[in-house]
Structures are given as C-alpha cells and as structure tokens.
C-alpha cells in the first residue's frame, strides 16, 4: 500500500488547492472525495438532457491571485482578460436597466449624471476601505496568543494603510465599518435601482437584510475579491465552474496528488490526541502524518472525530456555529433565450439582478426570519449559454439563478414549500422577462435542504457558517482555533468554514496548506 504524508478529506476546490499546495512543497498527498466527482459546489453538471450548468457557484469573482500563482493555473488554461469582465445589471420591470460595467461599475450607465458622480465617489470609497480589509480577508488571522514577527509586521502594514487614508477618511472607515448597508447607501445615493443592487450584493449568501446591523461587511467581502487583478471584477468561466475546478485538479495532479472519488470518510482516527489517519465507509483504514479536512468544520469534529476525542468547550463552540443557509439555486432549461425587459444584448450576457430597491430586499428578508420564504424573492441571474453555447442544445438557453430568501428550516417543510416557492420565483421572473414561463423545458430548484443533501453542506450554507462579524476572522470557525490548526495534533481545517470564508477563492485551502508547511506537518 502506498503511504501518504497528508490525506485531504473533501475534493471541493479548497481541498484541491490545499492538496496541490502541499504536493508542490514535496508532500505525498491523497484527496478523498465522497461524491462521484471532485469540485463540491463548484462543478458543471447536466441538470436536463443537453443542458449543463454551474451547480451552486456560478460566478467567479474572488479566486485568490496567490492561488492562481502558486498553482500556476494560467498554464492550466485559466486566464481572464478585461474583456471577460461581466457587467452587473439592475433590472427594472418598466424601462431600461441600470448597469455597472467593468470591475464593479468602473462605468455606470442608465442613471442620472449626478448619480453617476455620486457612484464614482462611493465606489472609490468602498474599494479604498475594502482594500484596508483585504489583507485581513486573505491571510491567516492574527494569532492573539503568540504573534509571530511576520504577523506583527502584517498588522503594522494595515495600521500604516489606515494612516495613509488621512484623518477624515480613517474616521469614516471606522464609522461605517459595522454599519448596515441601507443606511450607508441612503447617505450617498439616490437611485433606488442602484441601491437595490448594492443592498442585494451586501446580503447575498447571509442571513441578513440590508437594514440588519453589519450588513455592509458583505459588500466589503465581495470587493476584497478580485479577478484578473481588478477588485470586484466578475467573470463567467467558459465551461462553467467545473472548468475552474478542472484547472485546479490538473495542477494538483501535475504536482503528484492522488485523487480518489466516491470514497466517503467514516471517521478520523485519533490516537492520544493526534489525528493519525482516516477510516472509510468501506472499512478501509488509511494513515498519514497530517489529516486535512476541507469539509464542514462541525461535520469534521462532531461526526468524523466525535465528541469523545475533543473537549466539551470545543464541542459547544462547534455546535453553535450558525450555518442555516437562505439561498436557493434555480436552474432552468429554456427552449429559447429569454428577453429581460430593458436589457440589451450586452446586459443579457451579464449578471442580472432582480432587487428593485433596498426596501424590496428588506421585505424579501422579513419572512425568512420566521421560517417562511420570500413571496417576492430577489435573484441573481446568469444566462451562461449565451457566451458558452456548449452548455445548451442549439438555440436553447440555460438560466442559472441564486434566489433569496429561502430559509433552510422552512416552517412548513420544503416538501410542501418547494413547489410554492418555485411558483413565486417563476412569477417574479415572468414579471421581468415576460413569456419566460412558456419556454421552460425543465426546472430544477435546489433549496438549502437539497444543497445540504447533494453537496454535503450542513444547512445548505455555501460559506459553511454564516459570514458575519461574530463568525469572521479570529472567530472563524470558532474562537481560539482560527488558524487552520485544531485541538488535535496533525488535524487541520481547510474549507470555507475557516477564515476567510466561502466563495470560489481557494484562500482557506491555500492558507491551511501554508500553515501546515510552516508547522512542518
């Protein structure tokens, strides 16, 4: 039997990034994936005969440049030019759409000239402030107990960056840091379509409405991501998200990583406080010096390790991570491309957002607090087959949408609720793209409950834990253990549940691998 230095549990993109990085540093690495293919929630899958779609994540906007560099992903076919940047489109039921072009609205069209200049100022400010947070949202969180020289220097750089803002700007940065996005938008903008779009972006993927305190952080998180060197830029990868994972997989395999799919890990083997390997569902036992878990942190400790091998306080913390998702994913197979009102050909290829105002987003959020779905949901829509015809049969079209709010624990249960929610979504789509209903060949709606089952994401939460102030940075996944190492020697966390969080960034995987290498694990 071949022996491995490191076993990575979970072949999602973070697991593959961690594996590839470790392999490049000379480790013999084995990746174990429970599903039939790698990629986790970042795959391209066929959902109707001839129709393929990016399964959960459908837009790339935060793949970390260090991941691209370390894994040499450009040589594996992952390259993005400025021309690939996708506009964001705030759809309106009547009249032309408002569009943010380039990297998160370098140019704004469809708004008044005074709004354009107000947006220019706000965008510059948001990017400036996101830039301050950026190192925090990419590096390993500072280790409060024993900070290394490097970490101290890193914090010093941030302090310097803050100082460089100037007194007024620094004060404003601190003032708005934990604000809600709606209040900030009201201070600076007029156009409710633009405000609706930004309110949607700030709350996408979290259990927050635009008026919930700290909701602005979500927008910073988005803008801390970059594509092709441009902050806030987004692209639709050719071939779907599966193509991104294929490039990462190719890099991993080239570095010598062995990958086994359809292999479910039953438990992590622990001896005297050390993780020494894993036992598979089949009964097979594998041993390694280092075990890297790139799956959900709570699943890792409560199910695979088990409470018996860890301390009560740690179990408590793991059990209290909030991770009930509110986002559903809709896939439509259409016999022809839909026509969204007010959207020209360029807009149709962009990211189409139905969030007509901050009030609308807030109202969509309200019922979800009480276990009910939004009767008028907000949506982020892409039509990936327009730019990549290989995803749909000739003349047909794929629609991929993230839909909020769909509470994981729906009071009436998703068996009864799902058809009703689909109806509500279709009504909303019909209002913005008249006639779309008649063109539907097949509809697949994945509720958080479906996402949980299919992609092994507890709560169906794509961040593997709410990404809010109390579950970020040094408190992610739990306080005291934010640095990828764990109370068990030889066991590391490398998934989205760890800092900085979810989205196709590869940052948790990369940081975890770097930590393991630094610890000579």
């Amino acid at each position, binding site marked *: 039997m071949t022996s491995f230095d490191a076993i990575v549990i979970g072949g999602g993109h973070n697991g593959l990034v961690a594996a590839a990085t470790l392999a490049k540093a000379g480790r013999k690495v084995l990746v174990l994936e429970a599903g039939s293919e790698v990629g986790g929630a970042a795959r391209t899958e066929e959902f109707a005969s001839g129709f393929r779609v990016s399964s959960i994540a459908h837009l790339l906007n935060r793949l970390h440049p260090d991941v691209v560099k370390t894994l040499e992903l450009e040589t594996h076919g992952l390259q993005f030019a400025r021309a690939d940047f996708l506009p964001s489109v705030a759809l309106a039921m009547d009249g032309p759409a408002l569009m943010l072009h380039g990297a998160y609205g370098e140019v704004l069209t469809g708004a008044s000239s005074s709004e354009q200049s107000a947006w220019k100022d706000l965008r510059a400010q948001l990017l400036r402030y996101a830039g301050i947070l950026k190192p925090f949202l990419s590096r390993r969180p500072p280790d409060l107990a024993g900070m290394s020289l490097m970490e101290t220097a890193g914090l010093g750089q941030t302090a310097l960056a803050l100082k460089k803002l100037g007194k007024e700007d620094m004060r404003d940065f601190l003032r708005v840091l934990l604000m809600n996005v709606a209040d900030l938008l009201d201070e600076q903008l007029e156009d409710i379509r633009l405000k609706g779009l930004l309110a949607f972006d700030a709350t996408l993927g979290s259990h927050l409405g635009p008026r919930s305190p700290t909701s602005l952080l979500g927008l910073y998180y988005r803008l801390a991501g970059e594509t092709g060197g441009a902050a806030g830029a987004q692209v639709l990868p050719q071939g779907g998200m599966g193509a991104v994972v294929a490039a990462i997989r190719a890099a991993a395999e080239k570095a010598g990583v062995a990958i086994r799919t359809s292999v479910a890990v039953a438990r992590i083997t622990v001896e005297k*406080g050390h993780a020494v390997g894993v036992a598979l569902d089949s009964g097979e036992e594998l041993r390694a010096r280092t075990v890297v878990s790139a799956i959900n942190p709570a699943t890792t400790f*409560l199910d695979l390790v088990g*409470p*018996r091998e860890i*301390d*009560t*306080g*740690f*179990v408590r913390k793991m059990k209290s991570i909030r991770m009930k998702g509110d986002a559903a994913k809709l896939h439509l197979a259409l016999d022809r491309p839909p026509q969204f009102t007010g959207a020209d050909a360029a807009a149709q290829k962009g990211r189409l957002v139905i969030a007509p105002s901050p009030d609308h987003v807030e109202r969509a959020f309200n019922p979800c607090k009480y276990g009910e779905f939004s009767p008028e949901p907000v949506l982020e829509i892409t039509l990936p087959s327009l730019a990549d015809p290989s995803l749909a049969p000739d003349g047909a079209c794929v629609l991929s949408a993230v839909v909020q709010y769909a509470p994981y624990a729906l009071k009436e249960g998703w068996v009864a609720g799902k058809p009703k929610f689909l109806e509500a979504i279709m009504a909303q789509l019909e209002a913005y793209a008249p006639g779309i209903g008649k063109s539907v060949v097949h509809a697949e709606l994945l509720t958080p409950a479906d996402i949980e089952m299919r992609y092994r994401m507890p709560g169906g939460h794509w961040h593997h834990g709410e990404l809010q102030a109390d579950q970020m940075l040094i408190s992610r996944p739990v306080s005291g253990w934010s640095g990828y190492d764990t109370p068990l020697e030889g066991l590391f966390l490398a998934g989205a549940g760890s800092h900085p969080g979810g989205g196709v960034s590869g940052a948790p995987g990369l940081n975890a691998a770097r930590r393991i290498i630094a610890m000579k694990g």
Partner: protein
Amino acid sequence: MAQATRKKSVAKTADAAVSARIAAQSHFRTLRLGTPFQPRLDALAKTQDWYNWAGYHAPHSLWDEELEYFAIRSQAALFDISPMTKYRIEGPDAEAFLDRVTLRDVTKLRPGRVHYTAWCDDEGFVLDDGTLFRLSPTRFRLCSQERHLPWLLDSAIGFDVIVEEETEAVAGLALQGPTSFAVLRDAGFAGVEKLRVFDLAYFPHDDTSVTISRTGFTGDLGYELFVPADRALSLWDRLMAAGELRGIRAIGYTALNRARLEAGLIVANADFTTAEHAIRADRLRRPDEIGLGFMIDPRKAHFNGRRAILEARAKRRLRHVLVGLEIEGNIPAEHAIVYHRKHQEVGLVSAAMWSPMAKRNIAIASLARPYGDTVVEDLWVEIYAMRELQYQKLMKRATVVARPFIKLDRRTATPPADF
C-alpha cells in the same frame, strides 16, 4: 349586561393566571432552603449560627465549635451534607462519559467504589473537585461543591447517558469519628464492617435502601449515607438513637473545616478559585497547581483539558503550587502572606489552624513557583494577631511539609475497631 359579565370573567381568568404564575415564582420568598434534616437541625441549633451552602440553610455550629470538633475526633459526629450538589449519571455510556469529563481513570473505578476526582475546562483549568460514586456498572453519583448541569449536559453530546441533578431528591449525612462504625453496627446496618475505605454498599432502611460509603472529609474513621429525601428524618433518628451511648453529636461546618484541614483536604473556592467563578485571569488553576496533579493520567482515553494540561507541563507553564505548611508558634496564620527571605511576597495561606491532633501549627498555602516547588528554604508567614485593638505583627518561619498533617490508623483499619 351580558357584555359586562363576560368582561368580568375574562378579567377573573387573567387574575387566576397571574396568581398561578406568582405562586410558581415564590421560590424567592425562601431565601435559604431547608434541608430534609431541617427539623432536627433546628431543634439542636442552640447557637443559631447559619450560613448559606449552595442556597441551603447550613449550620456553622450548632452548640459549641470546639466540642463539635472533638466529637469528630473522639466520638461520632453527624453532619448534614444534603446541600452538596449531586448528579445522577446513568446509561450505557456513563463510564465513557465520566472518563471524558473527569481527570481520573473511571474505567478503573469498580462498581461499589468511590474516588476523589476533579474536572477541567478546555484550557485545563479546574472547574471543581468532587467525589464520584459508582453505584452500579452503569450508574454513578457525582458530588461537588458547585453546580455544573449545563457543562455536564453539553459534555453528554455524543454519549448515551442521562445526566440529572438529584441534589433535592437525595439527602446526605456524614457520620465521622472513631465510634461511627459502632453506631452504624448498633443501628442494625449488618455487614457494614466489611466496607473498606472508598467502598460503598446498599443497606435496607425504612422500606427503602440507604447507600453507605466509607468516605468522608475528616481523615478519620467515617461514613457517608445517602437516602431518599422523604426517609431522611427516620435515618437521622435511627442513628441518633443507636449512637446515644457512643457520644453521637450533630455538628456544623466550622468543626468539619478543622478536621478537613488536618486531613490536608482542599475546598473549592476556599483554597483555589474554580474556573467558572474566577474573574481575574491569573486566578485560574490547573490541577498541578493545586496538588491534584496525581489525578492526571496521560495514558487514559481523552479527557477535558488533556491537551492544555500536557502542554502546560511540557512548556513549564505551571505558575503556582499548593503546599502544606508547618508554622512555628501556635498562632493560626489564616490568610497570611507568605514571604521568601522575609521580604519577597510569594504566596498566600488559604486555611490555617493550630491542630490539636498533630500538635502543630498547620496551614495550606498557594505559592508562586519556584517557591514551594524547588525553593522551599527561608519561607516566612506574616501573621497579624489582633491583641486588644492592636495588631501584633509576627513574622514566623514556615516549613513545607507533606499533607495530610495527621494520619489515623483507625481511618483505614478493616474491620474498624469497636471504640
């Protein structure tokens, strides 16, 4: 009219609901609960010197502190331990659960045995110490100073075990002193002579059964008895009647506290601050810092705090040590500061007394390492003796000595002698 009547009845129902709610909240009207033995204690309480033990009415003394102490050492003393927090822990995983929660190896604790143990949080800081009774292969009783139900319940995640507080349901008595065995035998508890130290067994009493263990907090020959609360008084009366000619006396905590100090035993939140009570970060203590290092078994299965405790040992992060002191002279050094070379503060005495049994001036103290650990020479305590409204400052030499301060053969002799 009909409307008015209906209104009235609605108001009446609301009133009834409110008074029912108020009645259910009346706990605050009794500031200190009585124990199941309260009628007997009240009848004997000549000094009316009460204190609050975990929310219960408990006597500091009943008639005379001094004589109550000597009842422990030369007769039989009856002490009500009902306020002690008691948990029933039962189920197929009870052993594994307790092995994970507590420091000592529970797999080595046989049914019918008791051991003294402690438990820690994730950082290895002591949450409490207490005694663990193995009542059957799958049933335990954990007795402690503080309450721990939320901690125990969260610790039970992943274990097939029931954790239930039984403090109110179970009454407890400590019967301690040289004649305690004879009292039990004369009271008709046949077979009690077979109990060795830390054994427990069940004995019939008043249509139910009483659990008698050969345990105690005095360093003397003695037993602890647990009985359902509604049989508490008949048990008390049975012991008192049988012990009349053996000098049985009810006692309060002051006397017991002296006996426990002679036995070198520590009290949570007196000799160390428990982790959940400590407000200041430097008051937290790991087992090695309060003399409980012997409980740590790195070879047993995982237990709470293991990683932190072993790391603290490996990285030499143990900052304190708990020691027994013998102090020259005969003035008790209660809460005195401990000095090295008479000028450098190195610790504090947490309990002290002139020991009538040891004929020594003894104390328990916490010192900052290396003092008390590798540096044990030239230690002093500063005693402030109040003499007619004036402090007399005494600097007395202190010597680190082994605990217990007294060792009584009768404590362990089986069968016990018939005093």
